[in-house]
């Protein structure tokens, strides 16, 4: 990535004023990156930006409130930052945002599917078009386009929507693309019992680790989440699908009008439950009813925290 050096340069320039800058670096194997907290100049050398930079680092910002934080953001991540600003959970003056032109990040589960497993990756070469992975004495080439996360294929904000420094050439908003809810719509075509059964089956394996919640940049309640409280007592701690499903609904509803579909919830899930669909459905409704999209305007008020006396797109039931 050519802009990477430019980015490192500009991070090291501002670093003196900052307590920490968050980016990505290599992880336990060549197929994974991990969040990288840079405090000293030498940390910057480790910075690596690639299609493996999947993590939405905005998740860390509320926890670092009060500190001077620099953050490297993909287009989608930057929308989470916008939301956090909108809900004054972070202070603009304390956050320095580094943007770069993002060409998309991989979906690890797609790679896993393609390769059968990813337990022994020895090396991984990446180009704009392909992933060349060496494993089990075999070299396999995967088309990048097919390995990209779904959100990337329909991405309309490849460049950060908000940034203080931008490294590299902006790709420019692909405004013409529209969010793609085909998956949701397809799912809705299923019969009632099919839909009902699907979630029971999927959520059965949920281990209630709440990675989906804690990876979510907008689940700001964190330690006070209703999921584990007795007052209010929404959920029991029993291992039952009812409570697991209910939690997903709580999560989705509390994100209504806030969620930017960064997909961290689903990515974080250690047992690969497709929990993103709940949020996509909410967003689809929010868009249709309120023509609202989260994470683009720090000044906006989310639709569920406001109202109109006459709602153009709500037709009430006649009895």
């Amino acid at each position, binding site marked *: 990535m050519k802009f990477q050096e430019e980015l490192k340069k500009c991070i090291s320039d501002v670093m003196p004023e900052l307590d920490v800058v968050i980016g990505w670096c290599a992880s*336990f194997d060549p197929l994974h990156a991990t969040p*990288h907290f840079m405090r000293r100049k030498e940390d910057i050398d480790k910075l690596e930006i690639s299609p493996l930079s999947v993590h939405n680092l905005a998740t*860390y910002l509320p926890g670092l409130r009060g500190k001077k934080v620099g953050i490297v953001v993909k287009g989608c991540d930057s929308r989470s930052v916008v939301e956090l600003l909108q809900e004054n959970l972070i202070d603009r003056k304390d956050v320095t945002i580094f943007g770069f032109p993002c060409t998309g990040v991989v979906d690890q589960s797609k790679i896993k599917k393609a390769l059968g497993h990813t*337990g022994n*990756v020895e090396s991984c070469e990446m180009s704009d078009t392909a992933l060349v992975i060496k494993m089990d004495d075999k070299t396999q080439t995967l088309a990048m386009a097919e390995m990209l996360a779904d959100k990337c294929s329909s991405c309309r904000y490849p460049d950060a929507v908000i940034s203080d420094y931008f490294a590299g050439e902006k790709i420019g908003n692909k405004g013409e693309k529209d969010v793609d809810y085909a998956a949701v719509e397809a799912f809705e075509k299923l019969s009632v019992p099919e839909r009902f059964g699907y979630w029971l089956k999927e959520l059965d394996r949920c281990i209630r680790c709440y*990675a989906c919640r804690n990876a979510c940049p907008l689940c700001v309640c964190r330690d006070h989440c209703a999921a584990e409280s007795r007052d209010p007592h929404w959920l029991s*701690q029993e291992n039952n699908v009812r409570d697991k499903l209910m939690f997903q609904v709580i999560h989705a509803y509390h994100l209504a009008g806030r969620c930017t579909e960064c997909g*961290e919830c689903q990515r*974080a899930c*250690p047992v690969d439950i497709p929990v993103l669909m709940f949020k996509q459905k909410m967003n689809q409704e929010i868009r249709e009813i309120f023509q609202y999209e989260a994470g683009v305007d720090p000044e906006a008020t989310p639709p569920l925290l406001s109202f109109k006396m006459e709602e153009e797109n709500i037709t009430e039931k006649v009895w």
Partner: protein
Amino acid sequence: MGLVKYLKSADLTPWLEELAQENKVFAPRYEGDAVIFAPFDPKQEISIKHAATMPPKKTVFPQSEKLVDFTYSKDPEDLSRVMIEGKEVLPEGTAVVFGGRPCDVRGFTMFDRVYLAEKTTDVYYKARRDNTSFITLACEKPETTCFCHWVGSSPYDATGSDVLATPIEDGYVLESFSPKGQKLLTSKLLENGDRWISKGQEVNENAVESLTDAPDLSRAPQKLLDVFDNMNFWEKAAAKCLSCGACAYLCPSCYCFNITDETTGMKGTRFRSWDNCMSAQFTMEASGHNPRPTKAHRLKNRVGHKFSYYPGIHDGVISCCGCGRCIKSCPVGIDIREIVQEAINHEPAIG
């Protein structure tokens, strides 16, 4: 040396079906994109090519289990006199877990030291532990995240297992390591395995070959105590932690739980459910005070417990089985190996 038998790959399913007649059999299979241990169902293909996403922990230590069912009743003479009657719900039936890996099964030995201690035996755990036998699959090739050999184990370690199955071309060498194991190997489908033993050993040795050298962790317990108060160290280590429970819940050797009561009307149940020390609630006190207020404190506890405090009271045994799931499944790729090594190599600043 116990019984040694040979099983043709083709006979695996029939054998499991056979076992399923007297036992509840658990075997790994795909649920969505995850491989988890589920009640064996001949109609559904099992998946044992690679270590499962989830260890078979829940087969002995369920995600949540009923401890007591209780009912209130009233004295018809005086409604304000309420009697409560509790019924202990002990697990019943025997189970066989097929397809766990040495690390997975060895994990239970960490449980045993805690839950089977004779003064404080956990009856629920004991019941399941006694009634469950493990047919463990030796690993042919460790993954990048594997480090069982760091913590005193190996790809064909049979500790905690009743039968160790080593895959060889089109079959398995089965060796029993307990009376329970011997019973499991009485099936007609199995033939004597002596002539296959060498093949099995070959596979085991290759596996060991492919391991990278393990660092010496003997200083870990002390070193971790040394950095106990160095919050700076832990804050760095925990910086990217999301304090979710994935690591603990996927860990074959994490055994913490929470107990809650749920009541509807005049009936209620006391549940025991998994809990994890990464969650803020874990140490939250009724007063509202939390002795482990930050994720740094909490990560310190998890690493410290496994590599220092537990060994400290359990004759040096590290309560980590090196399966590497906490690394592989961590949403942000925290690597416990790194942290332990950093601790070991950490030199306190002079002065």
